[in-house]
């Protein structure tokens, strides 16, 4: 065993933070739970600092199965940021409901630990370990609101479907290992390319199963059917975390495995992923139109955005990778913000979910409505917000790779999405609302989270250059 444990450090630090929060939870009284939040945030910040400090270290841990290259660092910072905003946005929500703060933070931290391992894994087994760590924590998070039946139902569904997807994934890994004798990405690619272009059938089957497993995790059509119920039933902060964090982690896997390691084999998998991308965008958007609940609409919209991200996987190359990474960040900012506003509309024990809850918000709560408008316009792809910039690079990558058809389909899909995103704005500004309707009053943490998301949405739209450069360097580090 070699002695290089450095690449493990960020994940380990998050794990330690989780344990510290767990112990603190036992030691603190009901009034002192704020300490848990700050401990968790500090832990996340330290982990981010470590990751950035260690970036570019080429030497891996455990016989190169865990790499903290720029790519892993990029995603690590994204996960940590997502976790931080999610924690900020959920403080007041948790106090309104009967969910225990301490356990909530611990589970978020644990799942982030899993995500970091996923992004850094250079080996199928390790990737799988990270995925399961993440997933199990999120299953529990989904069902944490025990007094609510729909949450329990969602957790059960999510767990069963997740186990199912895991089965696919594991079986795929087994087949790949069986045909190549290696679980490391590089080793697998080497064996296959040594075969001189012909791909063993069992290996292809393994890749296909792996693809299906990952498609479940990013909720690509036709493996999306669990999403609406699970997203709808879960407590809103958890939904936000799932829609953003889990999806980003799964796309880290897509990027490292398909975009880079197995890109020479793209002839085998690209057509399938292309079909997946088209189906996912189109169905996600069309179904989102018909929803009467904003939460479900956002669930379907997250499916549609997974479709946009798959465009980048199909496009491939440095441009595809760059677009993918940038869009993950864009998507994280605007989606977290949108869910944040949804949390703010919460009233007592019930979540605000329907379009009607947004009626008249524009002049009742101007700040919330303005933020929500920004997020909706950005998700719909209006410039100069980050959603537009992100889509621009996705389309650009697709066109440059010769997939102009994907860009056109993506553009038409954005048009469809305009329709339902604008409906929220119509409700907020153009319909008379219930003046009595309440929103979470005095929620400084939540507002801080929303403001962070809003600033990111605008900033990344107008000044995308730094984030784009970071994306490019991260993708180039894979080469």
């Amino acid at each position, binding site marked *: 065993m070699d002695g290089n444990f450095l690449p493990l450090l960020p994940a380990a630090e998050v794990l330690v933070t989780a344990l510290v929060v767990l112990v603190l939870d036992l030691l603190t009284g009901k009034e002192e739970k704020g300490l848990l939040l700050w401990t968790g945030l500090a832990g996340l910040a330290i982990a981010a600092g470590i990751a950035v400090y260690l970036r570019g270290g080429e030497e891996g841990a455990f016989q190169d199965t865990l790499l903290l290259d720029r790519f892993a660092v990029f995603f690590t910072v994204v996960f940590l940021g997502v976790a931080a905003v999610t924690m900020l946005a959920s403080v007041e929500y948790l106090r309104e409901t009967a969910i225990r703060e301490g356990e909530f933070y611990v589970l978020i931290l644990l799942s982030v630990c899993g995500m970091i391992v996923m992004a850094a894994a250079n080996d199928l087994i390790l990737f799988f370990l990270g995925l399961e760590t993440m997933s199990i924590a999120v299953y529990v998070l989904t069902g944490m609101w025990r007094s609510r039946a729909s949450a329990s139902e969602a957790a059960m569904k999510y767990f069963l479907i997740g186990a199912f997807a895991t089965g696919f994934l594991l079986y795929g890994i087994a087949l790949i290992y069986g045909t190549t004798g290696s679980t490391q990405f590089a080793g697998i690619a080497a064996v296959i390319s040594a075969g001189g272009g012909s791909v063993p059938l069992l290996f292809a089957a393994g890749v296909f199963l792996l693809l299906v497993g990952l498609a479940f995790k990013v909720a690509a059509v036709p493996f999306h059917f669990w999403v609406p119920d699970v997203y709808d039933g879960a407590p809103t902060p958890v939904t936000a975390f799932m829609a953003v964090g889990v999806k980003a982690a799964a796309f880290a896997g897509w990027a490292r495995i398909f975009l880079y390691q197995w890109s020479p084999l793209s002839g085998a998998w690209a057509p399938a992923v292309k079909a997946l991308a088209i189906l996912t965008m189109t169905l996600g958007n069309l179904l989102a139109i018909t929803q009467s609940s904003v939460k479900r609409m956002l669930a379907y919209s997250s499916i549609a955005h997974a479709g946009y991200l798959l465009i980048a996987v199909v496009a491939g190359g440095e441009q595809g990778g760059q677009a993918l990474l940038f869009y993950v960040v864009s998507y994280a900012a605007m989606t977290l913000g949108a869910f944040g506003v949804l949390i703010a509309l919460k009233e007592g024990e019930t979540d605000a979910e329907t379009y009607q809850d947004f009626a008249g918000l524009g002049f009742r709560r101007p700040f919330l409505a303005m933020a929500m408008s920004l997020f909706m316009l950005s998700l719909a792809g209006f410039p100069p917000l980050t959603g537009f910039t992100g889509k621009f690079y996705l389309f650009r990558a697709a066109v440059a790779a010769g997939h102009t058809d994907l860009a056109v389909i993506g553009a038409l899909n*954005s048009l469809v999405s305009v329709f339902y995103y604008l409906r929220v704005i119509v409700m907020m500004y153009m319909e008379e609302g219930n003046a009595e309707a309440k929103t979470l009053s005095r929620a400084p943490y939540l507002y801080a989270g929303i403001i962070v998301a809003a600033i990111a949405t605008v900033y990344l739209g107008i000044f995308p250059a730094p984030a784009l450069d970071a994306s490019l360097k991260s993708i180039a580090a894979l080469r």
Partner: protein
Amino acid sequence: MKGLSLLVFLPALGAAALLLVPRRAVSLLFYAALGVSLLAFVDSLLIFWRFDPNVADMQMVERLAWIPSYGIEYIVGVDGLSLFLVLLTALIVPIAILASWTIHDKVKEYLFFMLLLETGMLGTLVALDLFLFYVFWELMLVPMYFLIGVWGGQRRIYAAVKFVIYTMTGSLLMLVAIIFLATRNYQVTQTLTFNYLQLANLRLPFNEQMWLFLAFALSFAIKVPLFPLHTWLPDAHVEAPTAGSVILAAILLKMGTYGFIRFAIPLFPEAAIAASPYIIALAVIGIVYGAMVAMMQDDLKKLVAYSSVSHLGFVMLGLFAFNLQGVEGGVYQMLNHGLSTGALFLIVGMIYDRRHTRMIADFGGLWKQVPMLSAVFLVVMFSSIGLPGLNGFVGEFLILLGAFQRSAAWTAVAASGVVLGAMYMLWMFRRVVFGPLARPENRLLKDMSPREIAMLAPILALMVFMGVYPQPFLSRIKGSARLALERVEAQNLGAPLVRIERESAEGSRRGR
């Protein structure tokens, strides 16, 4: 910031500053917004003063790297094609703000969007990087959506959503076309750029040009609106508040025609030539159709809205004549339409404010009650139908002159549109202004207030000036118009990339 950038971002900065003004200070909000827009107008006059009429190329160009890894730059500049549209925009916005004095609800947001819209419009007119252009192009959309949707009439939500969906349909495809164009340019020249001036040098095969032209043209044709893509326009106009209608008619529609002459035609000249017979046909159909539908309207605002369809058909006809008179006339007519239709919407708004109806049948005999308003209405109407001595005549005359050299038959049909235009306008005017003052409600109407005079006085002065002495305008338009045409003519004379398609394109023109 200096020059054009200052002009473009001044309204946006003003909009941001408005957010700091307390909501209750309604008149402070109004005066602040008016002040900002007037400041922008003064700035636009400075730009006019600095503009060198002897230079056909882009002037006052500012360049900044924006997203270097993608070759995206911040480039703005102005030439004879955009100069007067910039001035028109800077003039119309303060007038529109004056026209909004009757709005009492949610004033802060209203003025915020109004100023943001001005930034979007000015930016669209001066942007020379296609990415930047697209950003401003879409930036115009959102404030207008809010202006219609929040402060509009009964069916405002329907109209606002329709407006956005229509416009987005075209513009998203244009986005893909922009990306494709830049990618092709990269493949050929190995430089990644979205700079319009550089991309214009690229010669693509006819087949690709055609697809790209279609994508651009769809986006612009919806905005113009070219028949049969005009159906969003009456809804948007009728439901929008007065100031919204004014800006929509005076400036937003021009963005479509401006887009054609600035981008679609010079970037894809061969495709533009090949498509021109069809576009001319649609433009002429629009002229006649718009006029005939306008004649049937019993709502004043709808009548003016359909007259826009007709008038913009003239502009398109002029631009696609591909000769100097036609293009010059087209650009000139953009300004005329901006003034006359803008003023018509203002007057309709004034009448509506007084009577809360726009039905022609509810009026009659207004001359006796409100002579000043009626007299102004008369001049504006004459300008709109192109009476010699007023601005409309110059533009229409040049357009018909240019179009005649291109296609005598279509021009003859289009000229009948002039007659139809006179018919519906005069008939409407007779029913509203002349005759007995039959209805008792109309006996209480008040004549124009000083605020309303201030709104219309500059427009009337310009109508007369531009009708009598068009030279200062035409001389500045001419150079840039010639430059744009040279690109098209080079296609006819020079040795193009793909010979066979070029010949077939010419053949189809000969066949006409």
